[in-house]
């Protein structure tokens, strides 16, 4: 169940033109590119909802393997895994990961794992 709200007046006002949405029974803050503004708001239920919106009917085992690896790595290291770490950690090539997520790696897998938006213009 999702319900979109506009930013003005919310706690997110002034934050990068993001928006607040009502997801999984609570307010969740997103930035303008659809990334969670606060990674601690992530939950598996939210990942499921966002995945459906991105065109993944149901997150399968290999999706979760990627999402959990990225998320665990981020929580332990404070950053996303390097490309070679991701590849080794999930046992898939980056091409295989990219294909599994309609939004690709950076705006698909990473977004569903609840990592912050990489602000580099190269991301």
């Amino acid at each position: 169940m999702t319900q979109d709200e506009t930013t003005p007046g919310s706690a997110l006002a002034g934050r990068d033109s993001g928006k607040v949405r009502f997801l999984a029974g609570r307010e969740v803050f997103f930035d303008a590119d659809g990334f969670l503004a606060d990674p601690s708001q992530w939950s598996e239920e939210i990942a499921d909802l966002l995945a459906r919106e991105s065109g993944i009917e149901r997150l399968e085992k290999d999706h979760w393997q990627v999402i959990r690896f990225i998320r665990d790595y981020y929580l332990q290291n404070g950053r996303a895994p390097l490309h070679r770490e991701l590849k080794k950690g999930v046992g898939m090539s980056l091409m295989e990961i990219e294909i599994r997520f309609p939004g690709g790696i950076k705006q698909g897998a990473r977004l569903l794992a609840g990592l912050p938006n990489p602000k580099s213009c190269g991301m």
Partner: protein
Amino acid sequence: MIYLDNAATTFPKPREVLERMVDLYAAKGVSPGRGGYDCAQEADELVSGVRKRLCRFFGGDDPDRVIFAANATDALNLVIQGTVKPGGHVVSSQLEHNSVLRPLQHLREAGLIDYDLVPFDGQGFLDPDDFSRAIRPQTQLAVLTHTSNVLGTIQPVEAIGAVCREKGVPLVLDTAQSAGLVSIDISAWGVSALAFTGHKSLLGPTGIGGLILRKSFDVRPTRFGGTGIDSQELIHTQTYPHRLEAGTLNILGILGLMSALEYLDKQGMEEILRRERALARRLWEGMAGLKRIKLYGGPAWDRRVGVVLANIEGMLPADVGAILDGDFGIATRVGLHCAPLVHRTLGTGRAGGVRFSVGPFNTEEEIDQAVEAMARISRSR
């Protein structure tokens, strides 16, 4: 790793450049000209020698008008902010890097100046007539990139210089992508100031760059401090080059630049450019035949350096770059390349593209591997 991000910085640097830089620094790395002892004088002579060498290299007319800065962005800030006056106008182009766009925008938002940006054509070239039309009576400066960092196109500086000279507008040239690769003569081209960086095609270290000013062109200091001369005065010295250099110089970087210039002399800039162009052309032609791959600009190889911008239909450039790196060991630069207006014009303003930029140490085999990698990625979805 196959390194194809040489437009960001050349890598690796020639070992002999690094070794000579470190050896000289170990022997003479004191504050140049600041002390009364012999070593300080010797260090100062080394620095003066590099100024003379750079002056000749770029066709300047006074070694004292060679100003050291941290990089091209720093040098451009120095010259732009030290030249324009309130109520003024600047002409530049849509091809510029943020190193030009952001200082101009900053000055516009401060209410000091206005600026216009001339467009580029479908191949990535500027038209000198557009510069002529954009110049107003209030125009105080024209700023131009010599070579686009996104498309690799070399701009007709001599013709634009002639326009600026005729209209009495000083021309500043950003050579971040061309210095060390394309022969430059600012005196012949009617350029008033040139900004360069040491760590790209000049093959020096990061942290060193500068300005070459013509004798006829003055720049106001915008930062102030110790210079080692006129110390009794509280007002910053007006004597070049110290007028625009405050604080201890980056002598390690300057010695690196010197070593790099010696290396380039031995290798021959023309030969490096010829080789890089041939490799970029091989890359372009290899990718041009692949389905779902879009290339930007055009194959005017006699007016380009070794930069190729590509995208794969239906894929984010950031992901293509990640796959090139993670699955194929190929380093490229993805995104907007700090040149947002170029990408906006190309229709890639949101996600950008994948930029391959060859350097002096790339090989045909590496280029063929990059083509093969792009072919495989383009077939993956």
